């Protein structure tokens, strides 16, 4: 099924079908991306569901997901394409005495091309969802590799010429904002900031992902998390950590957030001791209560 949504509400519904609870802003931007053939640049803190958005889009549209995980030192050969030297060499050796002109045309043909994610996404006969994950990890210079793909949906290979996209992929770039992406890249994208969810949305996510959780308790957890995020910590709890926390509480058979229960499970939410200490202090939790129960 291609991405032929009629309205943002359509997007919202089809994402909800695959278990991703978007909000009006997300669905509007996804709708625009599909209509205008533009990449989405999703930026926001870690663990709020940026990558999950791309996965959900692939599932909702029934498209294949092509993923390019970015890291420092990513280069052309890993992102776009590479010539298969070994195969080319074998070809040359197997055909001694042949005319050089024939051979040259032959070994630089598509049969000797190794596809990497960006080229795969471009050449795919079926439309795909292309996820470029953690784009802020590559160096500024490497970003330029992405520009041609994002702008014109094409890849230029000097020996072969320009390969244009057969079908337009739906592109999602994610960034944790550890550095500013270049203006050139941002200009080509629709910018989508994915913040921590509102209390209502987080409650809905909890209900969807942890179905056994009673409504009241989910509400309480969502409100507590929102409160903890107000405290200046090094790493605020993400949505996935909220879900982990809810599951932990359920598994322990806890159905009320007493001081003792909160203190002894705070380490599921927060990963730095200073954060845990500080949060316990700010929330006025009795730290000793946790030790007794633990």
């Amino acid at each position: 099924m291609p991405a032929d949504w009629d309205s943002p509400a359509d997007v919202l519904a089809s994402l909800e079908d695959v278990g991703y609870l978007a909000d009006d802003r997300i669905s509007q931007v996804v709708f625009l991306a599909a209509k205008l053939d533009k990449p989405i640049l999703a930026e926001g803190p870690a663990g709020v569901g940026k990558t999950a958005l791309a996965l959900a889009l692939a599932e909702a549209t029934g498209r294949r997901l092509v993923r390019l995980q970015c890291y420092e030192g990513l280069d052309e050969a890993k992102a776009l394409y590479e010539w298969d030297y070994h195969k080319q060499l074998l070809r040359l050796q197997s055909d001694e005495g042949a005319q050089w002109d024939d051979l040259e045309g032959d070994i630089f043909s598509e049969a000797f091309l190794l596809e990497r994610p960006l080229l795969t996404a471009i050449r795919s006969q079926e439309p795909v969802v292309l996820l470029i994950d953690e784009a802020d990890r590559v160096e500024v210079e490497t970003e330029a590799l992405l520009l041609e793909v994002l702008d014109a949906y094409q890849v230029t290979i000097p020996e072969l010429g320009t390969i244009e996209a057969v079908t337009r992929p739906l592109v999602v770039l994610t960034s944790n904002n550890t550095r500013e992406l270049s203006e050139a890249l941002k200009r080509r994208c629709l910018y989508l900031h994915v913040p921590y969810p509102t209390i209502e949305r987080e409650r809905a996510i909890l209900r969807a992902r942890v179905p056994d959780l009673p409504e009241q308790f989910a509400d309480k957890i969502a409100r507590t998390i929102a409160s903890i995020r107000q405290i200046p910590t090094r790493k605020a709890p993400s949505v996935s950590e909220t879900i982990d926390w809810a599951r932990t509480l359920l598994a322990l058979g806890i159905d009320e957030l007493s001081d003792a229960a909160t203190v002894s499970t705070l380490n599921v939410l927060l990963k730095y001791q200073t954060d845990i200490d500080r949060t316990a202090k700010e929330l006025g939790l009795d730290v000793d209560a946790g030790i007794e129960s633990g």
Partner: protein
Amino acid sequence: MISTLAEFVDELRAVGIPVSMVEAIDAAGAIEYTDLAARDSLRATLGATLVKNLRHYGAFNRAFDVYFGLEPVGSPEPSMDDGLAPGEGAGVGAGSGSGEDLLDSFVDALIGGDGGRLRRLVSSAVDRFAGMQPGRPVGGKYYAYRVLRRIDTDELLARLIAALSTDPSTGELDGRIEREQAESLVQQVREQLEQEITGRLIADRGRQQVAANRRLPLVEDVDLMHATRSEIEEVTRAIRPLARKLATRLGQRRRHGSKGRLDVRRTIRRSLGHGGVLLDPQFKPPTRSKPEIVILCDVSGSMATFARFTMQLTYAISAELARVRVFAFIDGIDDVTSYFSPDIDFVEGLIAMSREADIVRRDGHSDYGRSFTEMWDRYPDSVTSRSTVIVTGDARNNYRDTGHEAFENLVGRSRATFWLNPEPRRFWDTGDSVMSSYSGACDGVEQVRTLRQLEDFVERATLPTARKHRVASHSVLGN
């Protein structure tokens, strides 16, 4: 619509948000796929196409509220069946207003989540208390202040908490959650009030002027020497990516893409697979230098706000790099690295530092000469050929000895030295500022008064490949 959009783009550019031509065209195209009646869809569309930096969203929203965000202006007609109690409506009981009965109505509307009623209440409060006069050149803040003086928000907060609290015996955690909920409701009142007043001002003076009056500096243009608390918080949030960038920049030695020297042994080993043809040259990974940063920070009174900012930057850098040493000085210098390690809470570290660190020797006025001399005497080994020294301070020396020999000794040992001065350049070397005694020795001297200037510095901060031969800087001292 298109002309309003063009005006809106102009307004964004006037605030300082970079909106390119292409982006404006994208926005115009995207509007076709947007439900214009739904304000939030339009907000999402324009935000996604025009504003590509999270830091600019505050300014974007302020401008959006003026151009697209408001209900049609004019007080809605209060009718008998819309739930307004007597005395609530516009005009009724005007002048009597202690605002007492109004508070209860606000509590009802807020708890019930009745947006329409809240709007009418705010509108009638503006009618009664703001005393708005057409054409009067007064900003919206003034009117909001006049209304808020009559609506007792502290009392409103207290009543909301009382109304939200279900069980009086609940613990501190529940209390905190209820308080936060009540605060966000009071915030709704403030926002509604601001909208209402802005709407009326627009009717009076037109959009462009109201938008211009409402402009606030972008986060990167906030003057760090005189920043407010909330501005500092926003700046703080932007620091981390910057610290990371600085850390990587100082760590870079070679340009990207160069792979280092040919590894002959591995290349030949590799070639055995294809009959000894040296097909696949192997390279040694380039040696990445491990950057060391030494920060010298003036924390005297005149630098207080700025010092807090540099300390915040330092804290962020030390989370990125293993080898960071921090020295704070006023008229004495002390190693304060231990107060800013990543496992210590920043604010607590700052408090502990100001209590314990040995940085005041005499009268607590900056003495750069004494501090640098002491640094050279007490910590000569802290600066090595691998360290980058960053000095932050206004170089206002209170007419004392500059101690430039000690400073030049330190600089001579370092790989590179940068000086960040928060004062505007034109004030350097006026009064007791002795900037030029030091600037000759430094690899870079920058005015850093805003986040944007700090970003520029980080962008340009490239290290000299080797310690350049230093010409004695006495010629600089001569003038």
